[in-house]
């Protein structure tokens, strides 16, 4: 049985950039935006992070929350039954694939889909060693090429003992923390000033996690089509441009 209070410490572990899951290799579009001159300093970065959180961040948060809810429900079934029926495992695989397909439908850019799956693959490899569980094994089997990162993040959050809102918060945080760090490295910005930007976004992170959970329906896949799907056309353009740039430092 998971303790309710366990969620907070687990959330810190999940959101920690030192979690060895490869997050540091991604700039979330910042590198290309700097190359094109649309981010030149702290003010541009502030606007970039604000918009990224309201779009890609919200979508990632909603998918992570839905995955956490599903993961917790599936883990409960596994806890109750010693031998999981093959039929149940098939159902579980189908549900993970459906949630992953919802992530696909919300990610028009092939470059961003590839990035999301690469990050998902790295995270599930790490997570299965840290938090071994039948539920994560099922997810890995359901989407062998790597599920979208927010889906894996939500499933990992569930097995670590987080609530869906905490999974959403971790996803929202990741959607701005990684680009902010990348901007510090690429533009040589004052790291304290950039962390000030993240601090100013803290209320919005809470708001995003709350909004992400607003349309959840209790691990019922019937609610997934209605999850937020906020698009950021500039991020799509940046991602496709970044992939064609042979001199890039970051993977995305």
């Amino acid at each position: 049985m998971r303790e309710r209070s366990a969620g907070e410490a687990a959330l810190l572990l999940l959101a920690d950039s030192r979690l060895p899951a490869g997050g540091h290799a991604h700039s979330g579009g910042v590198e290309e935006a700097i190359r094109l001159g649309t981010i030149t300093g702290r003010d541009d970065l502030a606007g970039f992070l604000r918009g990224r959180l309201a779009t890609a961040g919200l979508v990632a948060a909603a998918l992570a929350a839905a995955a956490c809810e599903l993961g917790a429900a599936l883990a409960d079934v596994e806890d109750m039954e010693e031998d999981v029926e093959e039929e149940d495992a098939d159902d579980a695989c189908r549900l993970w694939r459906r949630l992953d397909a919802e992530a696909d439908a919300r990610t028009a850019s092939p470059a961003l889909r590839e990035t999301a799956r690469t990050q998902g693959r790295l995270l599930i490899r790490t997570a299965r060693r840290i938090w071994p569980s039948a539920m994560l094994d099922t997810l890995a089997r359901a989407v062998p090429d790597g599920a979208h990162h927010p889906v894996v993040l939500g499933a990992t959050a569930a097995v670590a003992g987080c609530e869906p809102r905490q999974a959403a918060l971790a996803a929202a945080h990741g959607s701005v923390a990684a680009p902010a760090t990348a901007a510090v490295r690429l533009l040589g910005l004052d790291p304290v000033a950039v962390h000030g930007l993240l601090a100013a976004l803290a209320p919005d992170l809470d708001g995003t996690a709350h909004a992400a959970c607003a349309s959840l329906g209790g691990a019922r896949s019937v609610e997934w089509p209605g999850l937020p799907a906020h698009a950021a056309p500039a991020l799509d353009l940046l991602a496709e441009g970044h992939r064609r740039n042979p001199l890039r430092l970051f993977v995305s």
Partner: protein
Amino acid sequence: MSDTWQTGPGPRRKRPDHMTIVSGMTGTAPPTAGTVMSATGAGAITARAVIRTAAGPGGTTRLETLLSDPPLTLRRTGPARVHLVGSGAGPLGGDHLTLDVDIAPGTALEIRSVAAMLVLPGPADSTMTVNARVGAGASLRYSPEPTVLAAGCTHRLTVRLSLAADAEVFWREEIIFGRHGERPGRGHSRFDVTVADRPLLRQDLVVGRPSVEGSPAVYGHARCVGSSLVAGPRWSARAVPAIGNDPPTAPVQASGDGWTALPLAGPGVLVSALAPDAVELRARLTRGEEAAERIAAGRIVAW
């Protein structure tokens, strides 16, 4: 068999609960198109227009239903083409407009509009909802003029597009952030596309909110956003990308200044564009649409 034709505004009276138009009712006054006073404000309009095709003799397309409901006024302008001509300004705040489109299996239709849709402020939010179903082997080309979000408006655009497995669609949407020199009103569009009940594309676009305004991650300094979705079996060979395995040659993506053609995970390509004005937006979308055709023809290695 004769077609049912309803064009023009028709008499203003309250709409009955059932609007089923029986094929064969011709030669009489166009029935049941009307304006309903809504509770949201004096004069606010709730309107529902309907376009339905049926298979005609020899594989032709017959317009089974063409039901106008002002300000959504429809005119047949070609053998398989309908124009939304729009009678009166709007939508204004408080108006709720719905267009239902049903393209029967094996038929083809093009829907256009004669002028931009200027969304104006009013006592409440305005909504425009398009529900479109495209049947097996059918095709739909939907390319209305842009939606202009005038200062002060709050508008919700919802599109639900449901495609049969081998249906083909071209669907263009253009949103202009306010008239020349004015700040944009608030807009929220939601686009849901399914193919054989599987999600192909889900997209919300939010305009005129502080969270996204001027953000280099969302629209940058653009004044317009647009997208063209092409979907159908011609793109289905690419439904399963080789994810996780780097292709032997560097991927050549179809992108240019302010536009990109994005092959989706399912059978379709989304052209996405940002531009400083409506003319440039259309030019960029056109370039992307041509690239989408090249992707279908296999002349661009998308990944």
